[in-house]
């Protein structure tokens, strides 16, 4: 990951790493739940924008979770 990555990329990937041991479906559900409960809507919106822009540094499961928001 580049040091200049958007904060939402770093913070989202940090969450995903904690659930890396879980199967895809469970991990994505846990990530999405965490984002809904603890992230300000503007951060979720920026995350969705990063997904739409195809940010190469985003964890694949964060991408799927963002699409559920």
């Amino acid at each position, binding site marked *: 990951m580049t*040091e200049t990555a958007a*904060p939402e990329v*770093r*913070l989202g990937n*940090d*969450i995903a*790493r*904690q659930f*890396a*041991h879980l199967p895809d479906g469970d991990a994505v559900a846990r990530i999405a739940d*965490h984002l*809904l*409960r*603890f*992230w*300000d*809507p*503007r*951060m979720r919106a*920026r995350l969705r924008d990063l997904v739409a822009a195809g940010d190469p540094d985003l964890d694949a499961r964060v991408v799927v979770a963002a699409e559920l928001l």
Partner: protein
Amino acid sequence: MPLPTGYGLNQAFGTSAGTQDFKSVEQADVVLLIGATPTDAHPVFASRLKKRLRQGARLVVADPRRIELVRSPHVTAAYHLPVLPGANVAFVNAMAHVVVTEGLHDEGFVRERCENVDGYLSFIADPVHSPEATEEVTGIPAADLRAAARLYATARNGAIYYGLGVTEHSQGSTMVMGMANLAMVTGNLGREGVGVNPLRGQNNVLGSCDLGSFPHEFPGYRHVSLDAVRGIYERLWGRTLDPEPGLRIPNMFDSALGGSFMGLYVQGEDIAQSDPNTQHVEAALRAMELVVVQDLFLNETARFAHVFLPGTSFLEKDGTFTNAERRINRVRPVLPPRQGKDEWQITCDIATAMGYDMGYASAAEIMAEIAATTPTFAGVSFDRLDQEGSLQWPVTESAPHGTPTMHVGEFVRGKGKLVETVYVPTTERANRRFPLILTTGRILTQYNVGAQTRRTSNNTWHPEDILELHPADAEVRGIRTGDLVELSSRVGTTALRALVSERMPAGVVYTTFHHPVTGANVVTTENSDWATNCPEYKVTAVQVGVANARGETDLEAARREHPDELAAPR
């Protein structure tokens, strides 16, 4: 910022506070002290702990540094486990692994009181968690860890006490859950002498958390998305409330630089000195359109203030402080506020000027509203506090005199939740350029960023922040005690004096963050706890070298670009 304690204990037990009262330590037979230095940061509790240790209780210290309690007059720890910064979760899992695989766990307790028992037991029994398998990561000799785990698990009463050396990590929340797991599997909850006990970062931090300072919660740790909870306040205040969480402090800085967060009202906290990556924080504060600082002193943050409002000292305050044992204490003024208003009145005046008539007549009236709207505070009032002296929440109809010990018979959430706490290394690692790990902490004679204590003769004892490092790390760099050294990380550089010290393990250096002239947070990074974004103050990859002279740092260069900013009087 104690957010990981709130998150972790809420997940495990259903409430975001320590399980015991301080007196509980008098019944503890084995104390497991993790990432805390009570003799420096919690001296009153340290006295009570030492008293119990002198009576024969055993102590296990898990800390990278050989802190005073490892060996000092009349106190010798049974074991010092020198856990490396960043490896706490691997350490606590290894402890639980020993307990479970050696059959030392309390089968009756976990079956009756906990959930996810089989899932957790099979997770933790996996040999990847053994002390031998994790020795290289934790830095703890496996035999010592096994012996310490046996000591804790076989104690009549085993108690865990922990500090910011647990929470201020990228896995701070996970570690809190890991300690809760360890207490649950050994049945060390729900009576005196046991429990999971945070030693908090500030005197009233629990009080602030209790009353809704988290951006996703209303008072009593109730999530903003709960319609019934919002309804309580909407009916009372006649306003519609936002069901979405807000920004946490590091998110505010990022959003300020992103252009969406333009105003800040900061009361009694010096974020420009206390928060990590000072250059980033200062850039964020400069980017804001309005910074209002309300404080006793022109602190570092006041440099960036467009409006400065006066604060009051505790001697002028009328209200409550709530300490780590959930004890709500009255704070009574010994003199009227010198600035003419209580701090809360200034906040009310701002709200009123912005269109909401916040017309409380007294602090007692505010407490009455808290009690009327927050179930755990239902029985609290200034009158009751005056009668009882103090009260430990929850104070309810069934516990009118408060609750010294929580989770007796049943956890607040019903069953205690055993969580598979997977160890995930932090992304901040030593490397060729930054081969040492910096960890930070406090010293007895200064408090936090020193805004109050630096202005006293306490400075006689601790006039500057010092970098402690192991003799081997010092020798290869040609550093002697007293030398001025440069401390650099990937985000910044500062200079301070060195102290060669065998209290440090090789590879780990330590300093305090009491003095803005050193600014330890110039080098700490944006890394944070995955769940709560509490900054990872305890792990920063750094390099240290002899400084010939104190040159201009990046931070000072950035400040030179802004000569209009007010320099805080020292």
